[in-house]
């Protein structure tokens, strides 16, 4: 299991453990695009270095969100692009699926983006992402030793996240 803490050098990875984890990887970005958390459970192929990987992911989601909002046939109101809304309000995509993985996405009103990649037959993970956001609030935001805007290095958050992700089917 590798742990990337943002833009610094990652420690040398331990041998991969594929058993017991149903998800592949997870990103958490804040409003300004800083990757607060990148967690990897099962990723056999790395194509880019960590920096490029995070930037690509953030850029992709930003573009996808504005594309889906602009192409919305049902809404007459142009909306305010770039302003985060409550999950479910406005028009925002929440997942895409390929033949090898499914990417689930959630953005909070404070601009936090949570992205989870799982196997393609996963169901709707919107409630799970909300629960993960709850874990974030409890163990990161309310952690007195955490400074907002910095990469997340909280043991309790990591363990409870791993436990929860293991239980998502």
């Amino acid at each position, binding site marked *: 299991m590798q742990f990337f803490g943002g833009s610094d050098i990652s*420690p040398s990875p331990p041998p991969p453990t594929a058993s017991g984890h149903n998800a592949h990887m997870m990103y958490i970005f804040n409003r300004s695009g800083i990757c607060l958390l990148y967690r990897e459970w099962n990723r056999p192929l790395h194509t880019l270095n960590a920096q490029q990987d995070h930037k690509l992911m953030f850029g992709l989601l930003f573009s996808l969100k504005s594309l889906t909002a602009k192409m919305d046939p049902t809404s007459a109101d142009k909306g305010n692009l770039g302003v985060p809304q409550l999950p479910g309000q406005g028009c925002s995509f929440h997942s895409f699926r390929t033949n090898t993985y499914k990417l689930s996405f959630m953005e909070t009103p404070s601009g936090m983006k949570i992205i989870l990649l799982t196997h393609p037959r996963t169901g709707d993970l919107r409630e799970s992402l909300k629960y993960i956001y709850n874990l974030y609030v409890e163990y990161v935001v309310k952690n*007195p030793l955490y400074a907002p805007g910095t990469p997340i*290095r909280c*043991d*309790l*958050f*990591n363990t409870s996240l791993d436990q929860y992700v293991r239980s998502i089917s």
Partner: protein
Amino acid sequence: MGREVSESCVDSLLTEMVSSYCNRFYSNKPELAARRIEAIGYQVGHQLSERYTMERPRFTDHLEAIKFICKDFWSELFKKQIDNLKTNHRGTFVLQDNKFRWLSRISTDPSTENGSQDPESKAAQAMSMYLYFPCGIIRGALSNLGIPCAVSADMSSLPACSFVIRIKA
């Protein structure tokens, strides 16, 4: 006495208090910051014990007062009682709370656990600043009940923590 306040507000206030005293008012002087925080706790404990012993008769001896702290006082503050009380019958009491509410969300950087001794003691020192306030509360409460004492805390096994009360002869 039926008014309520949000627990998140209290948690944030305590976090900010420790952070202000340690990083702004007395930066580089952690002993002074600790003493100020403990003094604030002393005032708070003093007033709280006044309020929570309003309808009770006087305590007959030190053990009764300590038992009041363990049961009623702790329940008013933390919605639970002290889990374990030990004494040497010579003026020293150890109160153990197996899941101290104000420390339930604190956690440290997992990657530095394997490092040298130094980062660990820095994290331990940062965490110990959050225990001065409850120590002060206990000291203030007991001194209002006529028992001058010294209170220290030990958090070697989070989330459990112990408070050691030494009654001045």
